[in-house]
C-alpha cells in the first residue's frame, strides 16, 4: 500500500506542471470570457439605450437580461473545458510512452522497483483519475467565482442570477462532466475508468509486442467493448426487451466490473511477463 502511494505521488509530481498549466488556462480564459461577454452586453445596452433611445424596460424585454447562460454557451467557457479533456486524453498515452523515450529509459528503473508491477498500473490509472476529478473540482470552484465576477460587472437590473446547479444543467455537455447526482458521478467516472483501463491494456500490448501488439490491442479493445455492450444488444435484438430496465442496469454494472477486472489482470500479466524495454 505504501509503495503504491509513493508511486502515485511520484507520478503526480511528474504531471503537476501540465496540470497547473491546464488549470491556469481555464482560469484565465473563462474569467476573461465573463468579462468580455459582460462588456459586450453592456456596450450593446448602452448603445441601444443612449444612442437609439430605446427605453430601458423596452430593451430588457427585447434583448433579455444578461445571465450566466450567455457565457456558458460561448467558446470562452467551453473552449478550456475541451482543452482540458483533450489534455487528459493525450496524457493517457503519454503517461506510458514518456517512460520509454529519452536517453535513460525511465521504465527500466520503474520495472526494477522492489514492488509488484501491478502497482505501476494502479498508480498510473489513479493519476488519470486524480487529474480528471481535479479539473472537475476546479471547475466547480471556478463557477461561483465567475458568477461573482459577473455580479461586479453587470448592474442588478440587467442581470439574472443563476444557481450553480442551474448553470450546470443548462447545457448537456457540462451535465456529462458534472452530473446532477452523485450516483451518476460514480457511474460516469466508473465507466471512464473502465475505458482507460482498456486503453492501458492496449498500450501495454503494443509495448510488449510492437506492431503485432497494435493489432492485438485493437482486437482486445473491440472485444472489451462488445462484451460490455452485449447485454444491451441482446436486449434490443434478441430478447425483445426481456429484462426490466433495473435488471439490465445491474447486468451492465456486472459487465463493467468484468471488463475492468480482465483489463487489470491482462495489464498485470503483460507488465510482469511480456513487457520489453
Amino acid at each position: 500500500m505504501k509503495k503504491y502511494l509513493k508511486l502515485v505521488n511520484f507520478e503526480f509530481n511528474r504531471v503537476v506542471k501540465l496540470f497547473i498549466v491546464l488549470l491556469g488556462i481555464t482560469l484565465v480564459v473563462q474569467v476573461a470570457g465573463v468579462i468580455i461577454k459582460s462588456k459586450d452586453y453592456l456596450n450593446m445596452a448602452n448603445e441601444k439605450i443612449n444612442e437609439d433611445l430605446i427605453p430601458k424596460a423596452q430593451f430588457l424585454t427585447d434583448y433579455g437580461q444578461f445571465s450566466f447562460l450567455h457565457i456558458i454557451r460561448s467558446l470562452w467557457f467551453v473552449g478550456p473545458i475541451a482543452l482540458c479533456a483533450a489534455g487528459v486524453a493525450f496524457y493517457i498515452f503519454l503517461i506510458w510512452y514518456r517512460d520509454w523515450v529519452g536517453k535513460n529509459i525511465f521504465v527500466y528503473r520503474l520495472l526494477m522497483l522492489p514492488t509488484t508491477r501491478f502497482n505501476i498500473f494502479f498508480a498510473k490509472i489513479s493519476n488519470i483519475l486524480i487529474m480528471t476529478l481535479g479539473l472537475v473540482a476546479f471547475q466547480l470552484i471556478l463557477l461561483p467565482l465567475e458568477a461573482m465576477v459577473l455580479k461586479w460587472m453587470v448592474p442588478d437590473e440587467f442581470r439574472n442570477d443563476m444557481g450553480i446547479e442551474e448553470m450546470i444543467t443548462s447545457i448537456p455537455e457540462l451535465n456529462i462532466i458534472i452530473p446532477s447526482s452523485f450516483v451518476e458521478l460514480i457511474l460516469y467516472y466508473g465507466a471512464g475508468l473502465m475505458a482507460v483501463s482498456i486503453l492501458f491494456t492496449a498500450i501495454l500490448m503494443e509495448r510488449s509486442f510492437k506492431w503485432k501488439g497494435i493489432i492485438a490491442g485493437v482486437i482486445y479493445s473491440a472485444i472489451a467493448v462488445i462484451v460490455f455492450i452485449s447485454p444491451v444488444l441482446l436486449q434490443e435484438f434478441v430478447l425483445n426487451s426481456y429484462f426490466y430496465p433495473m435488471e439490465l442496469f445491474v447486468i451492465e454494472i456486472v459487465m463493467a466490473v468484468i471488463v475492468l477486472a480482465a483489463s487489470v489482470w491482462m495489464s498485470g500479466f503483460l507488465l510482469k511477463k511480456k513487457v520489453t524495454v
Partner: protein
Amino acid sequence: MKKYWKCTAIIAVIVFSIGTFYVNSAISADQNPEFVMKTESGDAKEIEPLVLEGNYQGDSSMNYVSKSLKITEDGTDYTNRSFLDRLIGSPTPVIKELQDEYHGFMRGKTPAVSLFFENNQRLAYANVEYKIGDNSLKTRDYTFDISLLNKEDGSTDSFTMKIPDGEELDHIFVEDVQIVDGELNIITENTVRNSDNIFNEKHVYTIDIENQEVKNHEAIHAPKGQENSQSEIQLIESEMSTTAHEKLLLLKTDRKIINDSESTRAEEINRELISYNLKTKDKGKISGDLNLNENEISSFDGSTVYLTKVDGQEHVITPFHLEDRQIGTAFRFQLSDKPNIKEPPMIRIKDGKLYATSQRMNSKIDGNVIVADLKTGETLYKGKLGIKDAEDEKDDYDLYINDMFVK
C-alpha cells in the same frame, strides 16, 4: 506525509469541492415546495386513490427549469430527481401494478395500458410487430404478438400470427384489447394508402384463442375517399384501465374541406357516436339527445358516457346510459369561485365517482380538487392544492397538472 503534500492537497480539494457541490444540491432539492391536498370539507379518504402528475416551475431565474412531480394524499414526490428513477422510468400506476403482480408475464411487454386486458381469469396482451424492409424504410410482415396469462394456474400462452391482408397496410397499431366470450378482440387503427390518399380505418380482429387463428376481421369504419370531405373516427377508451367491456364507443367526426383561394381548411359538419358490440358484432349510431356540438365526451366507463360542458361559471356533467339510451341527471359543479375558462378542469370518472382538479395553480390562481358521487350528486370531498408549510410559500411559481390517475 510532507513528501506527499501535492497529492494530498489535490485529493483534499477534490473531495471538498465535489462533496460540497453534491451536498448543496441535495439540500436545494429539498427546497422544492411540498404540495399537498388540503381538505376543506368531506372525507379525506376519498382522495386516497388519487395521483396527480404535473410540473412545478419555480421562481428561479430561469423559469424553463421545470420539475415533474406527483401529488398524492401523502404529499409530493418529485420524480426524475434521482438517476435511478429516470432509469427505471415511470410506468403508469396500472402498468406498475401489473408489473409487480405478474413480474414474469410482463417481461418484454410494451408498457401501454391499451395493449392489456384483465379480468378475473385472464390477463391478455396484444401488440403488433413488424420488420423494417431491407432496402426501403417501408415496414412489412405485420404480425400480432399475443400473450395470455391464465391467472388460475399461472400458465402463459404466447403466440404470433400474421395479420390478414397485412401487405396492404401502411401502418397498424393496437388501440384496445378485449376478451369477450372467450374470444380475443384486437381493436386497431389501420393506415391504408390508396394512391395519394391516406386513410385511417378502425378494425376489429377476432381471434380464436384455442386454435390461434383469426376468426373474424371487420372494418368498423373505413372512410371512403371523397373529394372535399374528411371523416375521422376516434375510439373512446374507457378510463385508463384494462377492464372488460363488450361495447366499443366511437366518435365519428365528419369535416367538409373548404378550398379557398389561399388556404385549405376543414370545417366540422357532423359528429356522431357509434357503438359497436363485440359480442354480436352489431354496429349502430347512438341516437339520443347527446348534443355533441356543445358537449365534449370526457369519459366512458363501459356502460355510461359522460358528457361535459361549461355553463357559465359551472361545469355540467351529463351521464348517458348506453343500455337504455337515457340521459341521467346532470351533475353541476363549480371548481373555484373564479373559473378559469382557458384551462378547463381535468376530469376523471371511475366507479361512478367524479374526480376533478384544476390544471394550473399558483399564488394567484387556486388549485382545487373535488370528488363527487355522480349517482347521488353528493360532493364527497372538497380540497385545495397548496404548499404544505406556510414558510415555503412563494410569490412566483406555477404548478401544472398534466395528468390524473385514480388507482
